[in-house]
């Protein structure tokens, strides 16, 4: 029992003997008692951080293992690409390859983000306390942390392997990654959830096609390095992504369009 309530109750009971008709004490006790009742009525629950940690057991191992495998494949791809195209042509080919890798990094996350629908778990999850929005947020955190490690590993590998500048490699990893992430998060935040795998895959395909187009017809695009201008673009994309994540965490309409009449 809260200290204030206890003290008020004690003094009221003591006064009661002397002034049995005094209702002023009751007026002071009642709101405190209601407040105490409401506080006790609210159920204890783990915070979002605790929930996120527990998701690592169910999702993290699977996601990070897949990402590690993908990273191995991508490093092999970059290594092979560099070996095939050495010299001048590697100056456009390797950045192109890195751009494709960063898009593919995120594309690989699509099945994981859509798991609930694939295995008919969505309805059960939606009715739980943390619901679909928070579950998605947890999944994004787990996938995002893995992606960060993978991007860093790719960056270090590419710097070590190719003769390109770190700024150039960072640019062609970061910008396509942030563009893809912005697209995916916008779809999750605003579109029907059932459309996510189709729209996400289409977006990835379009970005890959765009990177190829630039390599074929505008190869000079791959001669840039990481300038303050590009840094500003990356910052804007990052802020946009954060805003979409905030929208996702508050979204409550993941179930619309999932059902037939019933």
């Amino acid at each position: 029992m809260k200290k204030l309530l206890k003290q008020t109750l004690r003094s009221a009971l003591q006064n009661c003997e002397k002034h049995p008709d005094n209702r002023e004490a009751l007026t002071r006790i009642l709101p405190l008692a209601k407040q105490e009742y409401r506080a006790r009525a609210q159920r204890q629950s783990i915070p979002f951080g605790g929930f996120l940690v527990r998701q690592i057991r169910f999702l993290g191992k699977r996601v990070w293992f897949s990402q590690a495998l993908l990273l191995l494949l991508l490093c092999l791809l970059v290594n092979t690409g560099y070996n095939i195209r050495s010299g001048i042509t590697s100056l456009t080919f390797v950045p192109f390859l890195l751009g494709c890798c960063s898009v593919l990094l995120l594309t690989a996350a699509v099945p994981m983000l859509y798991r609930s629908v694939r295995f008919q778990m969505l309805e059960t999850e939606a009715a739980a306390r943390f619901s679909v929005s928070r579950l998605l947020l947890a999944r994004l955190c787990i996938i995002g942390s893995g992606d960060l490690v993978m991007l860093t590993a790719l960056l270090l590998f590419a710097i070590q392997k190719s003769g390109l500048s770190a700024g150039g490699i960072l640019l062609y990893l970061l910008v396509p990654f942030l563009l893809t992430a912005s697209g995916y998060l916008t779809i999750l935040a605003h579109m029907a959830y059932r459309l996510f795998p189709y729209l996400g895959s289409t977006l990835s395909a379009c970005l890959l096609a765009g990177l190829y187009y630039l390599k074929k017809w505008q190869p000079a695009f791959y001669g840039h390095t990481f300038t303050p201008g590009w840094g500003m673009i990356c910052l804007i994309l990052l802020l946009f992504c954060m805003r979409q994540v905030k929208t996702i965490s508050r979204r409550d309409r993941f179930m619309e369009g999932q059902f037939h009449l019933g």
Partner: protein
Amino acid sequence: MKLCIEHLTKNFQDKKAVEDVSLRITPGVWGLLGANGAGKTTLIRMIAGILVPSSGRITYDGIDIRDLGESYRSIFGYLPQEFGFYPEFTVKDYLEYMAALKGLSRQKTREKIDLLLDTLSLSDVRKKRIVKLSGGMKRRVGIAQALLNDPEVLILDEPTSGLDPGERVRFRNLLSEFAQDRIVLISTHIVSDVEYIATCNAIMKDGGITAEGTTEELVLEMKGRVWNGIIPDTDLLKYERENRIVNLRNEAGHKISVRYISDEPVLPCSVPASPRLEDLYLWLFPQDTRREEDMKHEFMES
């Protein structure tokens, strides 16, 4: 503790799945009865807060459930009509996963899982992958997850689907015990699921509530409409086509005892029978008896 549904409507493109439904649900077991396509599941999903109504609102203790948000979902337990499992999950994994989603601490999770596995006779299969279990066991696992957070409001959509008669009885007893000081809403088209344990029932048809009341009040509507008659077995097909027959039983001497629904006695040797909730259901949804009869005729004519 009161769940109020006020003028709830849900439209899907050009069809009204739920139309102007209002209910006041108080602690106890409530049955929500109706044929397939009546709108029960859509109504249930709106009560669960996973579908947004086109109009109307649902309040819990006077507060809109959309405003309550997480607080409502924390006191809510839900078993959908159709649900799946991640293929790698064992029974224990699944319940731990759902417990985390419901915000339960690890200590509470362990205690509840042990208790529920024991209560629902799932202890032997706790480490078995759910995809390898029988349909009835999967349903029991689903019921277990709905009860994990000791919900004050428990909604079950076709909960006994796939359960054998013994399991159904155990399940009904479990619910009866659980429903003291809680709201339990069972949506079903199997009348016997709720007939003996529901304090109140609502019957849905074409998106609206056609009847509402205690089992005794609803059954009273069928007084004077339920009859027992005896017919020769050779006349069965003829009477089946013309009347709404609920039950048949073979008797000695090539006779059949027939329980049927009619405003007046129309079969030979008819005497009034005590009405049941099932009779009201079949009175309101005659297509359910007709479909069965059509199938029987097709079988016999072939």
